[in-house]
C-alpha cells in the first residue's frame, strides 16, 4: 500500500509540473480555487481496484504515462475539422488539445442574436462574469475526494463557459468540440453551464480525435439549472482507441427544472465517466441515458449517481452497453433518495448485449432509499442476440453477419434516437452502423 502511494504521488507531482505554464488570474478567488485543488492533489492518490468505486476498472497503466499539456498548439484549418461540425446551425466552441481555438469557434454575441447569452472561452470571460461564476465554478464538481477532478481544477484555464439568462431559450444547439491532435499529451477540458431561471439550452459535448495515438483527456463539466430551467446535454466520447478518457460531470437541479442527458461512449482504450445529478429542488426531473459501444480491448466505465434530495422528483435512466471482442463495460448506477425526498418517482434500466465469449460486463444498480413514500423501479439484463430474431432475418435472405449487425445496431439505436439534434443523430447512426459492421 505505502509503495503504491509513493509511486502515484510521484506521478501526481510530475503531472502538476505542467502548471508552470499557466498564467495567474487577476482574480484572487480563481487563483485560490486552483491552489486548493493543487493542495488536494497532494493529499490524494490514484485509485486502484482496491477502491470500491474503481473495483472493475484498472487504471494502473495510466500512471506510466506522465503526459503534460501541449507545448505548441496545433493550428488547424477549418477544412481539417469541418467533418466534425454539425449542420445546419450550431454555435460552436472548438478546443484543440484542450486549448481554445477562436478562429474555429463562433463568436457570440453576433451570431446568437441575444447579446446577454454568454457562450465563450472560460479563461477570457472570468473577469467579466466573476460574480455569476464564483458561486458555481469548482463548487459542483467535488474535487476533495476525486483526484482527477482535483487535477483538472488545478489546471483550470481554457474551457467552455455558457450562461443562459433568465427566460432565454438558445434556439440552436451549442456544440463544444474537443479535438485531440497530438499524442502523448494531457488535456484538461472544462465546461461550466449556468442555466438561469426559466432558460433553455441544448449542449453537445463532443470529444473527437484526428490521430490514433495515446493521450489523456481529463474532463470536468459543471451544470447548474435554476428554477424551471431546461438543459439537454448530449455527450459523445469518440476519442482515439488508444486514449485514456477520465471525466466527471456534476449537475445541480433547482425547483421544477429539467435535465436530459444522453452520453455515448465509443472511443478510448480506457474511459471512465462519472455523472452526478442532484435533484436539489422540488419537482425536478432528469433523464439520464447512456450507450457504450466497445470492442477489442476497450474498457468503458460509467458511474452515475442520481441524488433525490427534495420531494416530487422524477428520474428516468436507460443505460445500454454493447460489448464485443475482449472488451469490458462497467455500469454502476446509484439512485439515492434522501429522507426529505418523498414522492420520488425513479426508474432505472441497464440493458447489455454481449457479442463475444470474451466480452465482459459488470453492471450494478445501487439503490439507497431513505424515504418511505417513493416509487423506485430498476432492472438489469445481460444477454446475447435473440436467436429467433436472427433466424427470422436469415429466413428473408440476410446473411448471418448482416442479421447480427442489424440487430446490434437496433439495440444501440434506441439510445441514439433520443438525441434531439438530427445531424448528430444521423452522424452517430452512421458511426454505430460502421462499428457494428466492422467485425
Amino acid at each position: 500500500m505505502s509503495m503504491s502511494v509513493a509511486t502515484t504521488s510521484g506521478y501526481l507531482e510530475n503531472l502538476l509540473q505542467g502548471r508552470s505554464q499557466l498564467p495567474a488570474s487577476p482574480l484572487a478567488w480563481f487563483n485560490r480555487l486552483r491552489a486548493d485543488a493543487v493542495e488536494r492533489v497532494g493529499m490524494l492518490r490514484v485509485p486502484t481496484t482496491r477502491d470500491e468505486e474503481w473495483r472493475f476498472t484498472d487504471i494502473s497503466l495510466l500512471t506510466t504515462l506522465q503526459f503534460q499539456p501541449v507545448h505548441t498548439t496545433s493550428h488547424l484549418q477549418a477544412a481539417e475539422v469541418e467533418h466534425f461540425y454539425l449542420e445546419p446551425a450550431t454555435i460552436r466552441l472548438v478546443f484543440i488539445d484542450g486549448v481554445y481555438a477562436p478562429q474555429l469557434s463562433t463568436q457570440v454575441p453576433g451570431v446568437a442574436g441575444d447579446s446577454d447569452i454568454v457562450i465563450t472561452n472560460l479563461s477570457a470571460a472570468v473577469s467579466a462574469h466573476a460574480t455569476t461564476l464564483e458561486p458555481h465554478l469548482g463548487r459542483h464538481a467535488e474535487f476533495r475526494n476525486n483526484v482527477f477532478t482535483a487535477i483538472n481544477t488545478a489546471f483550470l484555464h481554457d474551457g467552455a463557459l455558457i450562461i443562459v439568462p433568465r427566460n432565454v431559450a438558445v434556439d440552436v444547439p451549442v456544440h463544444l468540440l474537443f479535438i485531440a491532435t497530438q499524442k502523448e499529451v494531457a488535456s484538461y477540458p472544462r465546461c461550466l453551464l449556468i442555466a438561469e431561471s426559466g432558460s433553455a439550452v441544448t449542449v453537445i459535448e463532443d470529444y473527437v480525435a484526428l490521430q490514433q495515438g495515446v493521450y489523456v483527456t481529463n474532463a470536468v463539466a459543471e451544470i447548474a439549472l435554476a428554477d424551471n430551467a431546461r438543459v439537454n446535454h448530449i455527450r459523445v466520447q469518440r476519442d482515439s482507441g488508444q486514449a485514456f478518457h477520465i471525466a466527471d460531470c456534476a449537475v445541480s437541479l433547482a425547483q421544477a427544472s429539467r435535465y436530459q442527458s444522453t452520453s455515448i461512449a465509443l472511443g478510448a482504450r480506457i474511459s471512465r465517466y462519472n455523472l452526478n445529478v442532484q435533484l436539489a429542488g422540488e419537482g425536478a426531473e432528469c433523464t439520464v441515458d447512456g450507450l457504450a459501444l466497445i470492442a477489442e480491448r476497450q474498457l468503458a466505465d460509467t458511474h452515475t449517481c442520481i441524488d433525490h434530495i427534495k420531494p416530487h422528483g422524477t428520474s428516468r435512466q436507460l443505460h445500454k452497453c454493447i460489448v464485443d471482442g475482449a472488451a469490458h463495460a462497467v455500469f454502476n448506477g446509484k439512485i439515492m433518495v434522501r429522507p426529505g425526498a418523498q414522492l420520488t418517482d425513479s426508474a432505472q434500466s441497464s440493458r447489455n448485449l454481449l457479442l463475444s465469449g470474451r466480452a465482459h460486463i459488470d453492471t450494478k444498480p445501487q439503490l439507497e432509499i431513505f424515504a418511505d413514500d417513493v416509487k423506485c423501479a430498476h432492472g438489469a439484463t445481460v444477454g446475447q442476440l435473440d436467436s429467433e430474431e436472427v433466424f427470422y432475418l436469415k429466413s428473408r435472405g440476410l446473411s448471418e453477419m448482416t442479421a447480427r449487425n442489424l440487430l446490434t445496431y437496433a439495440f444501440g439505436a434506441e439510445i441514439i434516437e433520443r438525441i434531439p439534434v438530427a445531424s448528430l443523430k444521423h452522424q452517430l447512426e452512421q458511426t454505430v452502423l460502421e462499428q457494428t459492421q466492422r467485425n
Partner: protein
Amino acid sequence: MIYQNSKPLLEVRGLRATVNGIEILKGIDLTVRSGEVHAIMGTNGSGKSTFAKVLAGHSAYEVTGGTVMFEGKNLFELAPEERARAGVFLAFQYPIEIPGVANNQFLRLTYNTVQAQRGKDELDPLEFDDFVREKMKMLEMSPDFLDRSVNAGFSGGEKKRNEILQMALLEPRLAILDETDSGLDIDALRIVANGVNQLATKDNAIILVTHYQRLLNYIVPDYVHVMESGRIIKTGGKQLALDLETHGYDWVSIEQRAAAGA
C-alpha cells in the same frame, strides 16, 4: 393449378426430424410441382409448423433422416439465407417482433439482397418506397407500417399481412404459409387471400398450412394433405378439406390405422 408435365419444385422423401432429441417428423413424403397449391391440414401438435421450419432451415430442428430436393438441389446443403435467396419463403405462424429495426429498412434490405442474388437491380430508398407502397395497396395496408419497427406491437392480423407483403416483395418459387389465416377476421382473410392468389403463377407453388377449411374457400388447393403425428396420412383433392370440416379428423386416422393393420 395442376399443369401437365410441370417440373417438381420440392421433393420430400422419408423426412424425419427431432427437436431436443424428441422425434416430431416421422417420415414425410410430399411432391410439389410448379403451379400447384397444396394444403397441409391437421390437428394442433401434428407437426405442421415443424415441417415448415425444417424446410426453412431453423437450427432448433435436427434432420435425422430422409431427403429434400428443391429444384433438383439438396435443400439441406443450403443455409437458411441461401434457401431464401433460392426462392423458399416461410410466412411464420408467429412472426417475430424486432424492436429498433424499421420495417421499411428491413423490407428494402431483404428485397435488395434477394434481387442482387437474382442479378436484378437494387432499389434506392425512394424507388423502393414507391414500389412497396404499391404492394401494400394490394394488401390494404397503411403506409404507417413502414415507419414502425418490424412487427413490434402489430396485431396478429397486421403481422400476417406483413408476412404476405414480404412474400409479395421477394416473389418466392415456393411459399409456405403457416396458419396465415389465424388472427384474420373475414375481411382481412379475403384481402390476404386475394393477395396470395395474385402472386400465384405457373412457375411458383404454395403450401398452405392450416387447420381450418375457411381459408381454402378463398385459395383453392389442388391437393389437401392430412398430417398426423409427423406423417402425411391421407392426400386428396379440395373435397377432402370439406369432409374434414364436416366430420373432423378422427375418421382419417381410423381409416389410416385400418389400412395399416390390413
